[in-house]
């Protein structure tokens, strides 16, 4: 027989009635005995309702929510990264050009005739020697091969070096007439004796300490002999000269004699350079340097300033131009013909149709990087000003000129047609002893340090050119994370220690409580400072440091939580519900963690919330002292530390440290407000 379940039947009838009631309730007034009239709130809901009635707690919660969104979600929506370094274009007085009077000679090779490098390098010193003595021609020998080399001055600042072609015109032998003893006043002849008149002339010359005298139309020389008393009498004259070609006359011979007497290696006679090459026994070969001379090098300190700045000139052009300046005045280079002209001061090179092409100058003006991109007018102005500075003994002078500038975005300034435009700027010439430097204010790309707040960087940038707002977000994340990790560590340690102490009581409780007393006594800030400076010395990476910091903070902070948990558990342990758990035979772990701890939770949550603020304060203080989180990781403390340690930075960069400091304050205040509100909500007994 089928059993009838009366219970089921009753339940179903009740349900039907309820449904009917529900249908009717829309139409009918609520009755006094209606169960739905009394709204029952869960304990959690009660706490929540009490919490949201507290205005300060609400403000705190709002701040916290905003802070969390700011720190954790903000970076995803913000355009900059915390370690991104920004650069900017700023007006900076830059070295624009330098100017210098050029004295060293540049040697251009016309044709390589095998003159050794050593000799080529002597060019400058030879030129100096020639300028001192005023010679226009100078003979020397190639140091390596001994071939005669001729250095010739073409005109001011232009010199040539050639391999000379020489023809021997004569050989000259000195005739040793005899010795004259100044003490005995006596002549000893080598060959035939001369007459008494000659001897008198010798004696007169010796007495007058002359080195040469004339007798009978011939020139005689008196040379120092073997000792002080002895003079060698040397005769020159027709008989001593052997010409290879035609005779060159008495005057030539006298020149030769004088050159020999002076010990010179070369002399000029009738526009021809002759060289003397000494042979054995007082014989000399005399050679004429003539038409066969071959040009090898041209040297000049001149630089070519082309009218069109930056035109590249070939060496052939320069050589031909230098040779033409004091010569024909016209030359052809690279298939184009040019003429040279001078206005007395400057030398110009003109094109065939008379337009100025370049100027020769020993005053060099170049861009500071060495490029020759300045135009002629700039160079002229500079030269004039430098001359004026030297004349008036000034150390600097200014002038205006159009120079290329960069705009604020680092692009060249363009006119409306998109062409590069030159901007009128003020330039300054400074005397730098060795040369002159022209400076000009220009936009320069540099790290945007300590930028004031702007549209681009709402809070400006810091000392490394990083965006403050981005670092505020990153710093907030670190600070909040440190706070949470440390508080969670503290709570775990505190619950374990406090739970054990409170539940078991007796000697375990005593032991743990003494441990808590000990930890209360440890001065935590000094310990943190010592550990911070030790971590500094060990040069750990910022991330490892952060871990250490959190571990130490957590380890030093559990004592108060353990004490709180223990106190709560002691008061709960003897309550009826705990007796019930014991009676129903629950295991110890379950009794502690399922029944005791949840009842301690309200106090724990309050303490943790307040503790979060405290940990954030400790962390930022340590970071401010430079012993906490390190660069390049941003935290609020470090950000303030970087600008608020010196009086100057503190007063100048208020836009950096005040907002960051307010962030710290706001966060900690919010945690305290919320903690306060939670305590009042959990424990309404405190309210009157």
């Amino acid at each position, binding site marked *: 027989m089928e059993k009838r379940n009366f219970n089921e039947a009753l339940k179903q009838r009740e349900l039907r009635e309820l449904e009917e009631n529900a249908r009717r309730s829309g139409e009918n007034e609520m009755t006094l005995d209606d169960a739905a009239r009394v709204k029952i709130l869960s304990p959690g809901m009660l706490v929540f309702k009490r919490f949201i009635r507290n205005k*300060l707690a609400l403000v705190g919660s709002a701040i916290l929510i905003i802070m969390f969104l700011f720190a954790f979600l903000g970076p995803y929506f913000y355009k900059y990264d915390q370690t991104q370094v920004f650069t900017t274009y700023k007006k900076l007085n830059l070295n624009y050009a330098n100017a210098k009077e050029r004295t060293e000679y540049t040697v251009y090779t016309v044709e390589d005739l095998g003159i050794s490098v050593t000799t080529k390098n002597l060019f400058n010193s030879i030129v100096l020697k020639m300028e001192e003595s005023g010679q226009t021609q100078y003979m020397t020998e190639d140091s390596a091969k001994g071939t005669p080399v001729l250095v010739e001055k073409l005109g001011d600042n232009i010199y040539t070096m050639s391999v000379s072609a020489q023809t021997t015109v004569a050989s000259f032998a000195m005739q040793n007439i005899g010795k004259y003893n100044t003490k005995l006043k006596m002549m000893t002849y080598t060959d035939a004796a001369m007459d008494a008149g000659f001897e008198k002339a010798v004696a007169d010359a010796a007495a007058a300490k002359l080195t040469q005298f004339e007798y009978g139309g011939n020139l005689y020389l008196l040379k120092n002999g073997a000792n002080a008393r002895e003079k060698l009498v040397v005769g020159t004259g027709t008989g001593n000269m052997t010409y290879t070609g035609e005779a060159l006359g008495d005057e030539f011979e006298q020149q030769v004699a004088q050159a020999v007497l002076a010990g010179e290696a070369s002399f000029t006679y009738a526009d021809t350079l002759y060289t003397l090459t000494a042979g054995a026994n007082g014989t000399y070969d005399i050679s004429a340097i003539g038409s066969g001379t071959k040009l090898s090098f041209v040297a000049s300190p001149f630089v070519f300033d082309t009218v069109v700045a930056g035109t590249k000139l070939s060496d052939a052009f320069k050589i031909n131009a230098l040779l033409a300046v004091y010569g024909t005045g016209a030359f052809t280079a690279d298939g184009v013909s040019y003429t040279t002209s001078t206005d007395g001061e400057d030398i110009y090179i003109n094109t065939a149709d008379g337009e100025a092409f370049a100027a020769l100058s020993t005053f060099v003006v170049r861009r500071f990087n060495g490029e020759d991109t300045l135009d002629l007018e700039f160079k002229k102005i500079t030269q004039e000003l430098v001359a004026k500075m030297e004349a008036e003994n000034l150390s600097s002078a200014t002038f205006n000129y159009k120079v290329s500038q960069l705009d604020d975005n680092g692009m060249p300034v363009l006119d409306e047609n998109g062409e590069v435009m030159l901007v009128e700027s003020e330039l300054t010439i400074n005397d730098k002893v060795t040369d002159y430097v022209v400076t000009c204010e220009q936009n320069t790309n540099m790290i945007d340090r300590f930028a004031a707040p702007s549209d681009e960087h709402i809070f400006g940038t810091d000392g490394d050119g990083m965006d403050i707002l981005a670092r505020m977000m990153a710093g907030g994340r670190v600070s909040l994370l440190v706070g949470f990790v440390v508080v969670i560590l503290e709570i775990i340690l505190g619950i374990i220690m406090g739970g054990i102490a409170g539940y078991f009581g007796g000697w375990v409780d005593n032991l743990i409580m003494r441990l808590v007393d000990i930890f*209360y*006594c440890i001065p935590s800030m000094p*310990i943190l*400072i*010592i550990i911070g*400076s030790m971590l500094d010395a*060990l040069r750990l990476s910022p991330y490892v440091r952060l871990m250490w910091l959190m571990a130490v903070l957590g380890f030093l902070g559990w004592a108060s939580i353990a004490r709180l948990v223990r106190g709560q558990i002691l008061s709960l342990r003897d309550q009826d519900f705990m007796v019930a758990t014991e009676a129903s035979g629950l295991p110890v772990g379950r009794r502690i963690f399922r029944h005791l701890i949840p009842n301690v939770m309200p106090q724990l949550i309050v303490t943790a919330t307040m503790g979060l603020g405290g940990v954030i304060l400790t962390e930022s203080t340590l970071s401010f002292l430079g012993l906490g989180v390190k660069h390049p990781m941003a935290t609020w403390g470090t950000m303030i530390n970087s600008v608020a340690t010196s009086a100057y930075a503190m007063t100048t960069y208020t836009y950096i440290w*005040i907002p960051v400091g307010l962030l710290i*304050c706001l966060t900690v205040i919010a945690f305290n407000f919320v903690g306060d509100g939670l305590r009042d909500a959990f424990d309404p007994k405190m309210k009157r």
Partner: protein
Amino acid sequence: MGKFILKRILLSIVILFCVMLIIYTLMHSLPTNYIDTMAQQLAQRPGSNKSAAEWLADLNAKYGMDKGILGGFFTWLKSAVVGDFGESWVHNVPPTEKFADVIGISFILGAVSMFFEIIIAIPLGILAAKRQYGAVDYTVTVVALVGISMPTFFVATLLKLIFGVKLGWFEITGLTSARYYDTLTRFGQIMNQAWHLVLPAITIIVISIGGLMRYTRTNMLEVLNADYIRTARAKGLPEKKVINYHAFRNTLIPVVTILGGSLPSLFSGALITEQLFSIPGIGYTAYQSMIVGDIPFTMFYLSFMAILTLLGNLIMDVLYAVVDPRVRLS
């Protein structure tokens, strides 16, 4: 009563022993190369009178750094108990001597700050409790919480900016005006020092006033909720008398206890504040020693701090027992 105090003292000594052991263990576990490097650096400072090797030898002799933790600890304890902490590496004198030089200024700073804290915080706390949820209460609560929430360095920097730089009323660092301090009379010198202590004192007051204010308020609220207050009101006492005689006196019990407990901390100096304002007190001196690994002074300072904390707890316990007979009985 005597037995109770004796018991607490003995317990304190045991705790002190353990704290010192922990501190010593920490110092002992500092990496050797860190100590070596610091000794080298300090020996090269101008005015240092010993070489690094001499210092390390001293350290080993007095601090037993070359022995095991326990052996070393007792070596150190033996000399520390008689006040011999070796010679400070930074200051070149025994820590106790340096301590005697600098403790005065720390005490003055602490005492002045505490005095102002008390005369501001306690009346405000009581006022807030009397008008709970009134405008005064909200203001006091907010001000107290803001004070607690401000980092010391931020308050100090703000004060420096406003009163030191913008208004120019105070100098922002140091205890004396370096330029003309020596030309002042004795009285002028004292005034000059007091003038330099104004900003640090304000900093300390701003930071710590909130706690005392909230503590007073909470206790006052508890007292006002008590039955004897209701009785007092019920028997028709004027509200003034209820607050000033019945409630206030009972509020004072925990407040005086906690203030008594913080008396020893007057000597502990304000580590961060002194450092920020370069006030040469015990906190500043200790900070300078700690960041360069001057072990003798650091050990002295840590031991000193531990003793102060224990002393504070002891005073608090005893005061509790004195004012509240129930504690004595349990």
